């Protein structure tokens, strides 16, 4: 029996399983008020998913507003937060759209499929803006490298990203692999996608124009990810109780590749009025959002949705998270052309409804009306919570327990090798060699570069050539954020910003993925509030607006949350990709120069973590003016062709930066340290620093540039030879560095 609107009106007292769907009683009450009656099962399905934390941002909304209110003025911002992804002007008529999103929980349950569908989801967000997706990145965090479950999760996640991304033909141009026991039950899989489009071709998720057709295209709908909806179907209709439906979504990258090409051809043919991808909340989300942003009304015949499993109930169809689906609004005249293009790409497409101006979203099933709601109430007017928050109980004690008490090493050679061979600092090649970084032929920089860089070329037929490129980096440091979430978020931004700048690209805009524990825990909520405040303030100071992002709450096991982990992605622009600067020492006889000042800063450092398992004190100081000055120097120096190599300093400090610079092309260096404490000089993690190398005759010009931007500049020595020599302190053959660095992950994962 179908729970129709008519039946709902007739049976006002029928109990509905809103609690099983994660809805609070007052939320359910509000639905009843909006509708003036109890919701039908299908309506309840829609409201419960649309008002879930994941879709409505009900706990985070009040904080995220700061990204708008504090946003720096930026002429580059074309589409800001609130759309599927932000869009920025990157010059010569081109716009870039990029976003990072989490798929944490599914990747723990089924690492391969969870991570794969994470990539698939973010790629569809980018497609829905009218862009051609051109690259992906993945920021990953796992439990301790030696913990048993990490051996299940990491290989599966990497294989999932590799399989899906490679099969889509999107180069993987960067990411992170971080290990910390706090992630053992909650690995973080944050996937980023970037796309390009012409500035005047931006598509939006909107359904205007009564009489226009609503087309569902892509994969058929199955019982993916509808655990909740099954509850609904069985709880409401005992007679038809359903077998337990699976929660795991399985991806089909081949279908997604077809969808990409199909969408681009649809855009080229100009037969799309509005478009929306189907992600979490599937048809519910796409129909309510499209209708709410368009003329306001829509009719849908749910019987027309093509099904993979013919036994699905309407509630389940509404909640299904089947992958590789899109929804478009198309004028009736353009339907034949639209269908022909879908057919060319073997993409199934079905008209399932029509745009109206009634202000109602009306859905039918077997001829009966089962949904009749004002779509905006589901899409935009969800609950908003001002969750209570306060500083965690032990925060002050944690900050007081600084690294000063830790014994400092005598043998710096051994310390360097120990850090270089640790899972967090060792080579990530075990991971990155499973990713195609070359496909599409525009990858200017990928691993082991500090930022990925892409040439803007041959994106779509007919567009004229440009010398421009874009660069992207993601960073995050959960330990820093644990010690001080405000500063930790700023340090994440600063590092990503710096990583973009070292390649010669000017940072332009920001995306972020905020990974936290439960928002119902006031201590976690404090971490969240502080991190957002820190990030918004820093974006303002650095002049880079947040264009979009994603919040992932409930990353916790029992009452133990992960470290607060804001992951920040920065996109930059370079006018001429030929002027990009690579990381590391390309040849001998170059001057090695350190930019920026080093202080005694070991709170949350890799050294404290690896050698003492210690986390306490405060993270490195944030100086955003210094960060901005450093970036100005790096970008100007690249533009003037002064830099032969450039690498940022971050985890592990100067020691690790020097080692990585030597490893890049097997060129050694001999340096002396600027300060009087070799340990501090080598391993401190002070922010706002970079290591560059220049031809000797270019040093003056660089020093002059540094002076102008008030960036401290220290000549350390010269490149060349086959060893890394720190005078009076250590000497390590590059071959030994390589063996240590390369062996870190294979030693664990085979």
């Amino acid at each position, binding site marked *: 029996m179908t729970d129709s609107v008519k039946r709902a009106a007739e049976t006002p007292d029928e109990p509905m399983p809103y609690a099983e769907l994660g809805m609070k009683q007052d939320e359910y009450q509000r639905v009843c008020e909006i509708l003036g009656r109890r919701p039908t099962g299908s309506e309840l399905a829609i409201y419960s998913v649309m008002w879930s934390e994941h879709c409505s941002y009900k706990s985070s909304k009040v904080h995220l507003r700061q990204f708008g209110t504090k946003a720096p003025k930026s002429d580059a911002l074309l589409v800001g937060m609130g759309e599927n992804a932000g869009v920025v002007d990157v010059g010569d008529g081109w716009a870039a759209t990029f976003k990072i999103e989490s798929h944490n929980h599914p990747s723990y349950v089924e690492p391969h499929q969870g991570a794969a569908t994470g990539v698939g989801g973010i790629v569809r967000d980018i497609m829905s803006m009218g862009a051609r997706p051109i690259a992906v990145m993945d920021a990953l965090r796992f439990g301790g490298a030696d913990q048993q479950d990490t051996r299940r999760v990491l290989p599966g996640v990497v294989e999932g990203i590799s399989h899906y991304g490679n099969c889509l033909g999107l180069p993987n141009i960067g990411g992170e692999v971080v290990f910390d026991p706090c992630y053992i039950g909650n690995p973080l899989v944050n996937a980023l996608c970037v796309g390009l489009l012409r500035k005047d071709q931006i598509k939006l998720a909107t359904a205007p124009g009564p009489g226009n057709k609503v087309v569902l295209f892509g994969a058929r709908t199955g019982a993916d990810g509808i655990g909740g909806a099954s509850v609904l179907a069985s709880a409401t209709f005992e007679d038809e109780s359903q077998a337990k439906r699976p929660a795991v979504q399985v991806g089909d990258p081949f279908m997604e590749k077809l969808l990409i090409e199909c969408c681009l051809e649809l855009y080229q043919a100009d037969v799309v009025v509005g478009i929306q991808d189907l992600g979490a909340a599937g048809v519910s989300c796409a129909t309510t959002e499209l209708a709410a942003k368009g003329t306001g009304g829509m009719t849908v015949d749910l019987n027309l949705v093509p099904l993979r499993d013919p036994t699905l109930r309407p509630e389940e169809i509404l909640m299904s998270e089947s992958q590789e689906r899109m929804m478009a609004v198309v004028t009736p005249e353009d339907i034949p052309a639209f269908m022909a293009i879908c057919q060319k790409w073997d993409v199934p497409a079905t008209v399932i409804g029509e745009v109206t101006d009634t202000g109602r979203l009306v859905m039918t099933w077997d001829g009966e009306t089962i949904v009749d709601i004002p779509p905006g109430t589901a899409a935009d007017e969800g609950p908003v919570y001002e969750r209570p928050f306060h500083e965690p109980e032990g925060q002050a004690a944690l900050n007081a327990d600084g690294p000063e008490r830790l014994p400092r090493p005598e043998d710096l050679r051994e310390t360097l090798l120990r850090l270089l061979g640790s899972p967090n600092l060792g080579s990530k090649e075990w991971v990155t060699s499973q990713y195609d970084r070359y496909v599409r*032929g525009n990858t200017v920089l990928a691993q082991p570069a500090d930022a990925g860089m892409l040439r803007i070329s041959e994106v779509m037929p007919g567009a004229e050539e440009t010398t421009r490129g874009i660069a992207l980096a993601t960073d995050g440091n959960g330990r820093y954020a644990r010690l001080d979430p405000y500063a930790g978020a700023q340090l994440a931004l600063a590092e990503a910003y710096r990583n973009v700048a070292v390649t010669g690209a000017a940072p332009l805009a920001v995306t972020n993925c905020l990974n936290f524990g439960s928002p119902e825990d006031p201590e976690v909520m404090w971490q969240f509030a502080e991190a957002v405040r820190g990030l918004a303030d820093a974006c303002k100071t650095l002049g880079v607006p947040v264009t979009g992002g994603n919040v992932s709450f409930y990353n916790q096991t029992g009452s133990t949350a992960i470290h607060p982990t804001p992951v920040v992605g920065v996109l930059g622009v370079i006018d001429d990709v030929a002027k990009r600067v690579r990381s590391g020492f390309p040849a001998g006889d170059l001057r090695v120069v350190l930019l920026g000042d080093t202080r005694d800063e070991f709170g949350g450092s890799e050294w404290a973590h690896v050698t003492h398992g210690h986390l306490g004190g405060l993270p490195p100081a944030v100086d955003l003016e210094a960060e901005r000055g450093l970036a100005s120097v790096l970008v100007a120096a690249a533009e003037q062709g002064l830099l032969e190599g450039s690498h940022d300093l971050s985890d592990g400090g100067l020691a690790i930066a020097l080692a990585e610079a030597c490893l890049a092309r097997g060129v050694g260096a001999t340096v002396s340290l600027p300060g009087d404490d070799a340990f501090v000089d080598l391993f401190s993690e002070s922010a706002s620093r970079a290591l560059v190398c220049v031809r000797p005759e270019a040093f003056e010009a660089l020093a002059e540039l540094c002076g102008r931007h008030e960036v401290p500049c220290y000549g350390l020595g010269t490149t060349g030879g086959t060893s890394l020599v720190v005078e009076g302190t250590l000497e390590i053959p590059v071959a030994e560095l390589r063996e240590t660095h390369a062996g870190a992950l294979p030693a664990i994962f085979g």
Partner: protein
Amino acid sequence: MNAARVGVVTFPGTLDDQDAARAVRLAGAEAVPLWHADHDLKGVDAVFLPGGFSYGDYLRCGAISRFAPLMDELIPAARAGLPVLGTCNGFQILCEAHLLPGALTRNEGLHYICRDQGIRVENTSTAWTSDFEAGQEIVLPVKHGEGRYVADADTVSALESSGRVVFRYVGGNPNGSLNDIAGIANEAGNVVGLMPHPEHAVEDLTGAPSVDGRGFFTSILKKLVNA
């Protein structure tokens, strides 16, 4: 004289077609898009079957593409001497179509692998390798999950003794391929397949840290011009 016309085939799931076309153009030839569903080779002088995951590579790499309408035209044309180069998925398709012997199977390490790979050119008499020197060592990217060449012992010894092993991995075998075989040719030398990607080694700024892939395109252009 008109530029030589090299067809670049797109199947559903082909990925490196844009790169192949770019490499063809950089070499001074015209890249002609060929669509899998057409029975039409558009009169091209040579054909490039690029890499990718045609049909998702779900069943076996190249297994489904081999039956595309375009292949009905390509197979007899190749048998009649049309120069054909298949890289990666293109190589797999050529094997599935029996234009080349043997098969490509799951990498021994069981992982997809993307790296810059040393390769020795063993045969410079094919349509696609005449511009190399015999024994020349070059660097091309490999990027595949199923590139381990296998064939029965008779086939392999026939390939070896007739010089039809055109490319061999050096400095480490990425996939466990028999005899380090990276690429082979048919008897006439007009059909060549290899796992590495010459089209990703034609520019300084992008792709592998070499431009060794250019030799494939200069080879075929010389042949077409002299024909």
